[in-house]
């Protein structure tokens, strides 16, 4: 600022009219540039579509996912049956939409569990430090050393089959990533001058943690969470493909794909189209995560 600008600034009458800007407005300002990226918008729309389908699948289809119709079995994709039909004549598109509920539910549960546990462990570990840090991190190391799918299989066999156990099993497998990322961020941020300034300004440890450390550590963790929803969807689908997930006739993406492999030669769409949809959703989530990561930089 030059001397002139400074004098201008002093003379400005705007001081009286000023009021703090609302949070929503700030959020909208930030979202603007994101919405100008076509790839991001397409990915976001697909994910939103999946989420809405998971909540209210009947909005997008007039078929019943459980109504069998033997005369219309294994029909190829057409205008009336977009994804074709399965061996019992059920509309596959409808079953994918209804299956979204179980798959998305399981994935969100898994990531939610991992997020809560991982963030908690990471923050405690990074903020308290010392022996507690060493103990927590060695536990995390042990978890990291086990292959994810093996760990999940072991947990599912221990606590039973079904959507919830599968979600827990997958969630436990991705805790270590969250714990590590959070801890690294907390360690970095707690030495920054603005944290010291807040402390010297009289802020308690709790306030410093909640208002300064957590929001600033949140960025990479949020990216990881978005990325891991995709991974969790894949893992739950994998477990239900192996038969640990939802029991038939409930539709779930993994079981849909598993069902179709009997007809892979004669009716490949039964397996491939649900698989393709799954891939698209995971890909969209990855793209969103990647975009967030770029924006942060």
């Amino acid at each position: 600022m030059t001397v002139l600008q400074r004098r201008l600034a002093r003379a400005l009458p705007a001081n009286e009219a000023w009021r703090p800007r609302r949070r929503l407005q700030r959020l909208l300002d930030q979202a603007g540039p994101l919405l100008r990226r076509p790839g991001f918008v397409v990915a976001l729309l697909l994910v939103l579509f999946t989420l809405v389908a998971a909540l209210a699948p009947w909005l997008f289809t007039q078929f019943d996912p459980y109504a069998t119709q033997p005369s219309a079995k294994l029909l190829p994709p057409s205008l009336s049956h977009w994804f074709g039909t399965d061996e019992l004549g059920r509309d596959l598109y409808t079953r994918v939409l209804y299956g979204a509920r179980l798959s998305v539910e399981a994935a969100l549960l898994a990531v939610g569990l991992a997020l809560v546990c991982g963030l908690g462990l990471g923050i405690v570990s990074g903020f308290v430090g010392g022996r507690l840090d060493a103990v927590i991190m060695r536990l995390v190391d042990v978890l990291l050393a086990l292959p994810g799918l093996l760990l999940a299989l072991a947990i599912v066999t221990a606590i039973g089959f079904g959507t919830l156990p599968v979600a827990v099993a997958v969630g436990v497998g991705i805790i270590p990533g969250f714990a590590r990322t959070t801890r690294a961020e907390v360690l970095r941020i707690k030495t920054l001058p603005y944290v010291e300034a807040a402390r010297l300004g009289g802020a308690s440890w709790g306030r410093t943690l909640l208002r300064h450390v957590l929001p600033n550590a949140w960025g990479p963790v949020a990216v990881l969470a978005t990325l891991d929803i995709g991974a969790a969807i894949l893992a739950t689908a994998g477990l239900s493909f192996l038969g640990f997930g939802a029991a038939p006739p409930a539709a779930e993406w993994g079981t849909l794909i598993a069902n179709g492999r009997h007809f892979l030669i004669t009716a490949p769409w039964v397996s491939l189209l649900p698989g393709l949809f799954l891939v698209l959703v995971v890909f969209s989530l990855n793209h969103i995560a990647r975009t967030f990561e770029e924006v942060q930089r």
Partner: protein
Amino acid sequence: MSRLIDVENLKVSYHSGGRVTEAVRGVSFYLQPGETLAIVGESGSGKTTLASALLGLLPLTARIDDGRLAVAGQDISHASERSKQRLRGRVVGLVPQDPMVSLNPTLSIGRQIGESLVLRHGKRYPGLDADVVELLQQVGLDDPALRATQYPHELSGGMRQRVLIAIALAGEPQLIIADEPTSALDVTVQKRILDHLEQLVKARGIALVIITHDLGVAADRADRVLVMRQGEVVESGAARQVLSAPAHPYTRELLAAAPAFGATPRPLPVALAGKQPLLRFDGVGKVFSLPQGRSFQALQALDLAVYPGQTLAIVGESGSGKSTSLRIALGLEQPSSGRVHFAGQDIGTLNWKQFRPLRQRMQLVQQNPFAALDPRFSIYQSVVEPLVSFGLLKGRELEQAARRLMEQVQLPASYLDRLPRELSGGQRQRVAIARALALQPDLLLLDEPVSALDVSVQAQILDLLRELQAELGVAYVLVSHDLAVVASLAHQVVVLKQGQVVEQGEARQVLEQPRELYTRELLEAVPGRRLAVA
């Protein structure tokens, strides 16, 4: 002789996201072999872009729109990467800005110098090791054979800067471009390195381009000066002429802002009659224990007293214990010996909870305004945070307090909605000062408050601090390595060296008639002395 650099009407612009920013707008200048040219300007004036263009290292988003840019007779404005690469190292050498990050931490010093020797002489150059040692000796490092085997982290900032100079010299260039070569270093080290660079360049007949925001540095070293502002050259000519009789108002403004050029305002005198000291150190010492049972004496028997409304400056190079004394005053460190009194209360042994009420009366302004504000907090949130932490004000009152604070630091209230990244360095430092003033403290601790800022902005912040002191009667403890800054603010001065007090007393007396050799050295290191003396 032919010109080494010949720039005519050069225009460079940055293109990103559909926006075009003109960084250099029609600059013309030339440089003869053996000459020293200083390019002076604030941040954003286009001086670094100009240097990158000379090196052929413009980023991909930059475009040379117009003009001619010839180095050693070769036009490189649109030359291929390969031909530019031939120029770098052999014809043009660079001494980069930040010695802390400019060396490869995984290679030894000798290897890094060797790299540029190999580039110059070919892979099977027989005299490699001897040349490395000789170069290290030339740039003034003791025990060059040992230094060649060491790694960057084992050297201090000043030594690393010397290594970088050695690397630039290794290619035997005709021209060295030094981009703010010493702004990250202590003043005394700065002086020694610049002296040395000057000698080397003179001895070898190399031309030198110094890029700096500090007119003092330019005045001391350069034959000619080029003053840039917003991508344009506002003034150029012989150094002495430009600086003693500046023609352009901007140059005059820069000169007035440079603390070393005599016209610095002095602090207002404060009557002390019968006042009790606000902060008092009695024989305070601090020992840090290091691994393997060793210990390090950071501070020894420091006595000082800060009176209400007065400024006490603690001066010293890095490692002198000046930051430690601040941290002790703030209760972030406990003194190993001696007593610390704040407003009559012994604070040396208080724990965090007991200290908390005192924080309302004592606040800190940090060194680096770029890291001192939470990037996610709006300026409003940052400024009022201490008030919220202590639960003093709510709602409307809080907004009023924010407006009043912004007025005090002379920023428009509309800035309250901005995020820190939308402000310049000087503006951020104003916000940090506003935050420190929020609780209406009696004492502000200023930790190098202007060292991260441009010279002209420094002067504005110092003015602000002086005005605030007159208005609010706050006492300051100012920690600085820059005596020019100290002279414009301090009533009392303590000079520290390696944890010990070298000299102490009234500012006028210490700065005008220094008794100790060390103080005199510090004073001489202030850039711009040669011109001020002449």
